[in-house]
């Protein structure tokens, strides 16, 4: 056995998973080669030290009780006819989460499209004022839903949410990995027959809501539309931002075939920082 081969076998030797023949050869080499033996003994000593000194500690009884109580609470809550979206959001008010999150969440809209609060299928009747993407986004963001819309995916994993949207919208749905934000989940819906996607994130104690539609459809202006100045800005620069009267920020951008509109109760520079520095490349093109 040469030194290279020996080095490759140090870890399995320390963990006693080498076969007998290989182990014999390993130990023969260790006997004859001091530098290799030093390496082996070093890793052996390290493992032994960690195993002895960094012992398993029992779970504190208070934690065991807290877990049991939260499961019982969850079981009780799941017996009432509320959407799992609102249950999930309510869970963020649990004592182990910062209280500010729960406060903000109780005042922030769940995702829905349009004004019909009894909507179950993600469609709403079309009226001329509702074709406005900006207004739809703002309404969605601000309204509070008491559980009439069933969330379709609640996950912090981008792959899960992306997979959920597969084949549902007819345009590529983006699930940007926004900087300093945790993904909460998404909903696929439609405005009349026009498919839409909605993705929600958590940024500290605020929600960031992203509305997505097919850019071509919006440009046509028939089923969905934007104010002229917004379209002009998107065509010229690829993005548009504005501060709304209540201090929240809306930011629109186009990525390929998809128009995105992000809203949050955040200062403009803070929202832009989340969108601009996303890790997936699907955020705003600033």
């Amino acid at each position, binding site marked *: 056995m040469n030194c290279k081969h020996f080095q490759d076998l*140090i*870890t*399995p030797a*320390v*963990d006693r*998973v080498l076969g007998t023949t290989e182990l014999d050869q390993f130990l023969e080499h260790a006997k004859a080669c*001091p530098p290799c*033996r*030093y390496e082996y*003994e*070093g*890793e*052996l*000593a*390290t*493992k*032994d*030290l*960690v*195993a002895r*000194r*960094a*012992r*398993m*500690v*029992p*779970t*504190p009884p208070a*934690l*065991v009780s*807290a*877990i*049991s109580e*939260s*499961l*019982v609470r*969850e*079981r009780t809550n*799941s*017996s009432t006819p509320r959407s*799992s979206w609102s*249950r*999930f959001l309510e*869970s963020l008010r*649990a004592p*182990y*989460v910062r209280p500010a999150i729960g406060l903000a969440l109780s005042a922030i809209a769940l995702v829905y499209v349009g004004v019909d609060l009894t909507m179950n299928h993600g469609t709403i009747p079309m009226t001329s004022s509702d074709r406005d993407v900006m207004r739809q986004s703002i309404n969605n963001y601000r309204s509070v839903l008491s559980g009439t819309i069933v969330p379709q995916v609640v996950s*912090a*994993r981008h792959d899960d949410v992306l997979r959920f949207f597969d084949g549902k919208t007819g345009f590529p749905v983006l699930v940007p990995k926004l900087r*300093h*934000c*945790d993904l909460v989940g998404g909903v696929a819906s439609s405005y009349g027959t026009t498919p839409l996607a909605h993705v929600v994130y958590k940024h500290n104690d605020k929600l960031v809501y992203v509305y997505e539609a097919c850019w071509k459809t919006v440009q046509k202006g028939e089923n969905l539309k934007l104010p002229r100045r917004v379209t002009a800005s998107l065509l010229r620069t690829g993005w548009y931002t504005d501060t709304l009267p209540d201090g929240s920020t809306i930011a629109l951008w186009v990525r390929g075939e998809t128009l995105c509109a992000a809203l949050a109760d955040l200062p403009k520079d803070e929202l832009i920082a989340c969108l601009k520095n996303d890790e997936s490349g699907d955020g705003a093109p600033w």
Partner: protein
Amino acid sequence: MSIGRDARHRQFELEALPHTDLLYNYALRMTGNPEDARDLVQETYLKAYRFWDKYEQGTNIRAWLFRILKNSYINRYRKASREPDTVEYDEAQNFYESVRAQTAGPSNPQESLFRNLLDDDVAKAISGLPDDFRTVVILSDIEGLTYEEIAEFVDVPLGTVRSRLHRGRKLLRAQLLEYARNRGFATKE
């Protein structure tokens, strides 16, 4: 076939709750903080309970729970950049080379050096490892999992488990030798 809510709850308690120690210890080593570990484990169990119907009965429930915890840890702590200070690999490697001694006898002199270190030194050295290495060292050397179990938990090939374990222990060793040197138990060449 649907099961009643009570039966579902009981099933979850029977199958998932016994692994609390594993999850808590991992959370504790990763966060370095009992309160954060507690929050993480509670969050994990709540998520697991909510998605209990997504768990495939008969498969490795420890691995399933662990993945939920790991993702929660990544979402909470990596994004907030709350990782403890990590040892630079090159720095540790250089130091390791500088204190490498010739072995003389049949005994393991490094074991003698380490014997004098405090438990705090060991805990600090583990906390200082990069997350990927720290995970496999904890799962192997503290929690006693096999390579196959670790590979399933962490969702990487077996070879990657071995190489991370090797590099993680090497980094640990370099840091522990540094502590030993600082306390006067080892001398530089």
